[in-house]
């Protein structure tokens, strides 16, 4: 069992990479789509510069506040964005994760490729590894 998982999504869009890139770095445009169903987005921003901030504030269906924060590591319009992502809720932080967004030219528009993976730190990894082996034993019981 791998210690960390990676999300890998590829989709095509019928608009140019320049236009698609705006849907990430223009806060008003980002705010029109960047939230899961049953959630309300308060604000979202991915700054279009290395060292800039990533920020999203949402409320879930129960009215609990969820905040995602991070730092933009790479901004190369209109083809590439990389930023860190950490969830915070109820005063506690989640692990830091890394988002890579690549927008390539395609025949009828753009090809969007998103990967989202965990940034695995040594201490966290040791715990997850120990705990996953314990969970393997638990698995059949817990289901």
């Amino acid at each position, binding site marked *: 069992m791998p210690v960390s998982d990676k999300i890998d999504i590829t989709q095509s869009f019928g608009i140019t990479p320049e236009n698609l890139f705006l849907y990430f770095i223009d806060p008003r445009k980002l705010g029109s789509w960047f939230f899961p*169903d049953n959630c309300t987005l308060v604000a979202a921003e991915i700054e279009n510069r290395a060292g800039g901030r990533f920020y999203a504030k949402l409320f879930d269906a129960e009215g609990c506040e969820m905040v995602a924060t991070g730092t933009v590591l790479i901004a190369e319009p209109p083809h590439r964005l990389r930023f860190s992502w950490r969830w915070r809720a109820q005063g506690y932080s*989640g692990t830091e994760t890394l988002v890579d967004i690549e927008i390539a030219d395609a025949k009828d528009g753009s090809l969007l490729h998103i990967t*989202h993976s965990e940034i695995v730190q040594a201490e966290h990894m040791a*715990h997850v590894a120990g705990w996953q082996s314990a969970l393997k034993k638990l698995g059949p019981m817990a289901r």
Partner: protein
Amino acid sequence: MADHNIAHTFCALGDAIRLRMVESLVKRSLSTSQLSDNSNMTIAGALKHLKVLERAGIVCKRKDGRTVTYSLSKGAFESIVKWTDKQRRFWDQSLNRLHRVINASKR
């Protein structure tokens, strides 16, 4: 566990103390004071972490007289292992909306 608790699961397990608590609960149920002793914390400190795990659906508590015992909840295995599924749902549902927004703007 309900979908809308996405953030709770991430936060619940992103902490070494809480991961250790979950590890110790895999073997058996433990009382609040056992859990606080194991992690060298005050009862109040342990309770704060246990509350986070409880709200994320990872542990559940039972009261026996004056003793409160914590154990892993039935859905804990799925909640924990499938955290990437929840983050994936964030992207999938958002990207579906992005397609709709772009199509609407073209009309």
